[in-house]
């Protein structure tokens, strides 16, 4: 349905999109992932000409929309966009937000538009908010209304520009479930998102964008479980992992704890797992304390959803030494606690570094 060839976009001297070629077929759901600032949003905004491309071509159902003679507003009516900042019309009620497009652009009668709007609101679960105003809604509700507003125009494709990035984690799921339902109903969608699980669930294809080009493309399984190219792999891993670097004995335990807790939130780990993890890290750091003034320590957390396991790696520089060696410990208290929360503890000397790998017990 949409054929994009050699798309490029420059903002002044900055080349944000270099050479993007992709085809989006009817009924497809494609997710676009990648590091921030690599042109994902710009790419999406070029498709509906919110930003004008510097080069390349975009054909929608065979029509070249970059042709100066084409009726761009008309083309846009068949596409629609959901924004990160919702962008509801503040002066209109929810109902009016949904009906203004159909009435003014599609020539629908008020009665028909109202009826359709109510149906859509029921679909997204917000029928009771029909007469409310945007400033009376929560973020998740606003976004669901925004999605309903898009659907009211009967679009052929909906573009989602980081739809959940501005939402409280508690409201992310309600919006994602609406998008999931749309996907199931067969709506063609292009979604720029950071929600990896969601992207994996809902897409037919995943585009990994980096540096202004489509770096790798494939099915969710291919991209998430088996990324071929290096940059993709690094990216996928980074999302799943957490690193902390300690260079002195005066590290801030609470600052690190806060980052660990954020990581746990993102992976939606149960409270018990989180508590055990914090205990584990603190006990390990206590054991390493004598070394901290002379060595550098890297802590790495990696969570595998598939295996449902949380791996904690402590890597320290300096001469070969295993701090967990009982003969080196003043008492066994710390070690006992560590052992109680881990499934396995492994020591290896790798790349001139001491690596201790611990795997947290499941539940």
């Amino acid at each position, binding site marked *: 349905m949409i054929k994009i060839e050699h798309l490029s976009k420059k903002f002044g001297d900055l080349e944000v999109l270099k050479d993007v070629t992709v085809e989006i077929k009817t009924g497809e759901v494609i997710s676009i992932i990648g590091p921030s600032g690599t042109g994902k949003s710009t790419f999406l905004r070029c498709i509906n000409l919110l930003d004008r491309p510097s080069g390349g071509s975009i054909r929608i159902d065979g029509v070249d929309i970059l042709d100066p003679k084409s009726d761009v507003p008309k083309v846009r009516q068949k596409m629609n966009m959901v924004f990160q900042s919702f962008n509801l019309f503040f002066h209109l009620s929810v109902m009016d937000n949904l009906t203004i497009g159909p009435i003014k652009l599609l020539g629908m009668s008020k009665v028909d538009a109202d009826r359709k709007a109510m149906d859509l609101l029921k679909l997204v679960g917000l029928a009771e908010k029909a007469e409310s105003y945007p400033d009376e809604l929560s973020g998740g509700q606003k976004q669901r209304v925004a999605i309903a507003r898009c659907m009211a125009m009967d679009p052929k494709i909906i573009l989602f520009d980081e739809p959940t990035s501005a939402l409280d984690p508690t409201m992310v799921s309600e919006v994602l479930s609406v998008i999931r339902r749309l996907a199931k109903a067969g709506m063609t969608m292009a979604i720029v998102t950071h929600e990896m699980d969601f992207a994996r669930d809902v897409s037919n294809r995943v585009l990994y964008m980096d540096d202004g080009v489509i770096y790798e493309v494939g099915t969710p399984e291919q991209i998430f479980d088996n990324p071929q190219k290096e940059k993709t792999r690094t990216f996928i891993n980074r999302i799943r992992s957490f690193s902390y670097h300690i260079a002195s004995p005066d590290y801030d*335990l*609470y600052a690190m704890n806060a980052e660990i807790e954020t990581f746990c939130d993102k992976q939606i780990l149960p409270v*018990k797992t989180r*508590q055990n993890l*914090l*205990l584990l890290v*603190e*006990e390990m*750091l*206590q054991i390493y304390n004598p070394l901290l003034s002379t060595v550098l320590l890297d802590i790495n957390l990696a969570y595998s959803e598939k295996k449902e396991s949380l791996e904690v790696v402590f890597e320290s520089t300096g001469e070969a030494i295993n701090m967990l060696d009982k003969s080196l410990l003043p*008492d066994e*208290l*710390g070690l*006992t*606690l560590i052992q*109680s929360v881990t499934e396995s503890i492994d020591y290896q000397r790798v790349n001139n570094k001491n690596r201790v790998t611990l795997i947290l017990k499941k539940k």
Partner: protein
Amino acid sequence: MTIQTKKEATALIVTITGRMDAVTAPEYEKKFSELITAGETFFIVDFEQVDYISSAGLRVLLATAKKVKGVSGKILLANIKGGVKEVFDISGFGTLFPMHDSLASALSASGC
């Protein structure tokens, strides 16, 4: 972490709120030293509001208990529950200290 004290007959009830970890343990140790120096000998430590304890916290408890014994005093622990209880059990500290399920039972056991 906050430490509050309240006199109840001859016992001093010490209520701890928050975490007992490597960062907060020294505070606990210092507070108890002050109380012992002030002449208190009978302590009931209330763990109701404690949500986390690590080896650092346990070690300080042990050191404090030794000091209390040194002045022929007594130390009872009350309301240890949840994750904190697990840590006590795993580390074996559960058998080291007399532990009570409630303040009331701790008070009655002390013969007040």
